[in-house]
């Protein structure tokens, strides 16, 4: 039997039953690899259910830093008989299957290595409580893997101690379960596995966290004081992260009172209504939601756009349409956010690609929204939001000040002869706003979503309304200078073919570009990080004969957005679309591109096509 052999490059997958406590053990295993100095990307593939259905956890470890999802499993830990058939079929030839051999099985695959560990029997012999037995099974396989893959056992013991800090009684039995698995493997499974982890220092200065945790933290750093939200997967944990960090950093030590408000609203309409109300008063506020919530919020988004009230909306995108695939990932709300609401509306979008950017863009979004007095969407997705990513540590410059935009103080108003809420004084389309309660006689106005003139007075004069709409557009057209610029993979463009991508596709991109280069198709790549698009984006498209647009949706929404916003020949774009709900893989991108390029002109060699 051939055995797959590799060091620090592999994909391991855990097939579990949801509600069995496996996720925390699997996360611990991922962190064990991370603490061994190897970049990892764990991905939780879970059902929209609480208990009893199949759930998977994939971990890719890569010292090359290739952290996109990869199809084909090198090592499968199969803990769920319901999904054995599908799980076993996924294993690469020469790969490994570890299963609970308390009940022996035939798997009918001659080309894989089967590793038997009687997890249940071991736990039944050792632990009395039935629930404990179930939970500890997970740690027993972690212990066995620690031996099989040569990951230092001490790392896991340390992780257990950290996890149960404050509940010290639980440390000993957890360590015991870990040791049981380790010792069983040491005794019976010597040389059973040639996939190994060798200690490196590639994760120094890195953290392992998810985008929602980072986004909630970014809101605290960005000065948000009000979070109004409604539970919806996969955005819920962003709101909860905000609360968690506020509890740490925003409770007044003397009074015990909160320098924040956290409101679970009755629905998404109320969530955004509250966020808009707070921002109207000058308190930075946000809401977090996903596709269906965006649909519900759109009327309010139009109000904030037209009445020019800042508000930050996190959309952690999931599989649509309708209820869709609530626990799977997609980038399919590009258009519903860019043009959310009736009438002529366009919105600023920030598109982070990893947790670090989720932190940074969250904090920046409040400055941008205050500066432009308009809604700002932060478009993350389930893959970034809910999965842990290996990314650089968060950074903060203490000299940084919030940009609260054009807000008039009492003194400002005292010095002014006259003031119009929607008057374009500076020629940038951005008017000056006042906050309620600022001045006893000056600055009060009536905020409204109906047509209004420069002095916020209701008008039905078409010319005045058209003038106002044009001014708002001007504001939008100048917005890109406040937004994150695109990022290029190459220093200088070298190919006639370009590739545009965004968001969580980042994880797969470097690997894909390397694959394409190796196959003789080097491509220039640009990652979009915001909308409206800046000149750099249009220049990149201009500079290339054709441009691949990689998206995780069916309808090529980013392409539609670019075609409607720019003066581009549609023929120039070639879409690469992944919309099965699983994070896009490098193989999918590379194979799609190679196939398209080969199809285009089969008579030419790859070099000639490029």
């Amino acid at each position: 039997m051939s055995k797959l052999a590799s060091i620090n490059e592999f994909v391991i997958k855990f097939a579990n039953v949801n509600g069995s406590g496996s996720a925390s053990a699997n996360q611990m295993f991922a962190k064990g690899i991370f603490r061994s100095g190897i970049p990892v990307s764990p991905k939780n593939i879970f059902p929209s259910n609480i208990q009893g259905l199949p759930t998977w956890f994939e971990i890719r470890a890569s010292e090359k830093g290739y952290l996109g999802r990869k199809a084909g499993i090198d090592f499968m830990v199969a803990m769920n008989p319901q999904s054995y058939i599908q799980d076993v079929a996924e294993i690469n030839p020469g790969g490994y299957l570890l299963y609970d051999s308390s009940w022996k099985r035939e798997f009918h695959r001659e080309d894989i290595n089967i590793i038997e560990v009687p997890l249940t029997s071991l736990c039944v012999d050792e632990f009395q409580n039935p629930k404990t037995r179930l939970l500890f099974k997970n740690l027993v396989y972690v212990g066995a893997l620690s031996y099989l893959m040569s990951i230092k056992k001490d790392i896991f013991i340390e992780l257990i101690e950290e996890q149960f800090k404050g509940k010290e009684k639980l440390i000993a039995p957890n360590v015991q379960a870990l040791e049981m698995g380790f010792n069983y493997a040491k005794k019976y499974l010597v040389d059973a596995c040639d996939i190994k982890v060798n200690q490196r220092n590639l994760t120094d200065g890195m953290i392992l966290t998810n985008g929602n945790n980072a986004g909630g933290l970014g809101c605290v750093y960005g000065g948000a004081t009000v979070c109004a939200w409604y539970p919806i997967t996969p955005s819920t944990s962003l709101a909860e992260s905000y609360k968690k960090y506020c509890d740490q950093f925003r409770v007044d030590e003397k009074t015990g009172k909160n320098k924040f408000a956290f409101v679970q609203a009755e629905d998404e309409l109320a969530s955004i209504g509250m966020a808009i109300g707070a921002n109207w008063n000058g308190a930075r506020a946000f809401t977090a939601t996903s596709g269906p919530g965006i649909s519900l919020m759109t009327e309010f988004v139009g109000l904030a756009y037209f009445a020019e009230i800042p508000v930050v909306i996190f959309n952690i995108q999931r599989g649509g349409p309708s209820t869709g695939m609530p626990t799977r990932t997609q980038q399919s709300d590009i258009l519903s956010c860019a043009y959310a609401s009736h009438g002529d509306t366009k919105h600023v979008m920030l598109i982070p690609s990893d947790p670090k950017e989720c932190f940074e863009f969250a904090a920046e979004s409040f400055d941008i929204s205050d500066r432009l007095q308009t809604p700002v969407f932060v478009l993350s997705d389930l893959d970034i939001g809910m999965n842990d990513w290996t990314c650089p540590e968060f950074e903060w410059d203490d000299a940084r000040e919030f940009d609260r935009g054009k807000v008039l103080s009492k003194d400002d108003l005292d010095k002014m002869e006259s003031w119009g809420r929607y008057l374009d004084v500076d020629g940038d389309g951005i008017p000056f706003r006042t906050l309620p309660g600022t001045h006893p006689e000056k600055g009060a106005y009536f905020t409204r979503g109906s047509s209004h003139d420069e002095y916020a007075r209701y008008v039905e004069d078409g010319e005045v309304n058209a003038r106002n709409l044009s001014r708002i557009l001007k504001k939008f057209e100048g917005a890109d200078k406040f937004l994150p610029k695109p990022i290029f993979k190459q220093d200088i463009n070298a190919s006639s073919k370009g590739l545009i991508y965004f968001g969580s596709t980042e994880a797969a991109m470097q690997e894909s570009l390397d694959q394409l280069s190796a196959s003789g198709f080097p491509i220039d790549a640009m990652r979009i990080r915001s909308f409206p698009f800046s000149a750099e984006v249009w220049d990149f498209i201009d500079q290339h004969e054709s441009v691949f647009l990689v998206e995780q949706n069916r309808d090529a929404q980013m392409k539609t957005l670019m075609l409607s916003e720019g003066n581009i020949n549609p023929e120039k774009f070639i879409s690469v679309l992944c919309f099965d709900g699983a994070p896009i893989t490098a193989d999918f991108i590379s194979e799609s591109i190679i196939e398209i390029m080969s199809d285009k002109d089969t008579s030419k060699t790859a070099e000639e096509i490029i």
Partner: protein
Amino acid sequence: MTYIVKPINHHPNLEKNALGLTRRDYEGTISTLCAGCGHDSISAAVIEACYDLSLASDQIAKLSGIGCSSKSPSYFLNQAHGFNSVHGRMPSVATGANLGNQDLLYLGVSGDGDTAGIGIGQFMHAARRQLNITYIVENNGTYGLTKGQFSATNDQGSKSKYGEENVLAPIDLAAMAIQLGAGFVGRSFSGDKDQLVPLLKAAMKFKGFSLIDIISPCVTFNNHVGSTKSYDHIREHNESVSSLDFVPIGQEIKTSYKEGSKVDLPLHDGAILTLEKLSKKYNPLDKGLAVQSLNEAEKNGKVLTGLLYINPEIKDHAEILNIADTPLNQFSDKELCPGSNKLAKVNASLN
């Protein structure tokens, strides 16, 4: 021209309040509602109440939804910021505004379509949260701005202007608010300024959710024979349960307490609400009795008005959430941003 500015000149000897302001200083722009609209009387009552209480207009925020009622905040308190939001969603905007700055006085102005129809969910949750707001419903039983459709507060059997009979039972917003835990619930009639002004004053001084459901006839679409929300019908069927006298903080309380007739209720800031009960059976501190009385009145075709229910011990939303006394919109960058040292600790917890 859809916006009409009022001339600011006025008689030099007009009476002034403690802030040195006249009633005219509390006015807004000229109303564009129909002549005789009940809503204009309510605007006048709001002006009167704010003048009497010597409130600073700039410390008031007026919020509304959509509809005739929701236009009316333009017609009072020019120096107060206003927010005409989206249909039925004023409560959430007011909730957010209140979280941003709980020091302002929030006046919510809505109608029966805006509150009992499209916005009933938000209304209920604002009451449940004990949002600190004076929530005025200008209730005329009809969708005036879209020309006379029945609203959800329209009584069963009441006839439209075109003779059509309403076949559905009405929603009683006051009874609903009491059941949802609102701390202050009153009902009044736009034509009864003597009752309405003290009720408004008390509501504005109450900390918590105070609803005043004001029957406000629509002269154009719902003021005919056969309508149960016409001026004539309400005058005939109005049954007041209490008469209010509002005594602001610092003034001597002159009312003498007499068993069964008068009750003094202290409000949060020390002001006193003196309540003269017009019915011996009625007790506005008794939630069950209040709901029961409303149900009975409805059965008998009567409209109970006055202060229907009050719970002076309620905590408002900001208190429930344990929000700092300093309004959230007044904290500095330094007070809000934890800084790089704390971020280093967060990083350490994630590697």
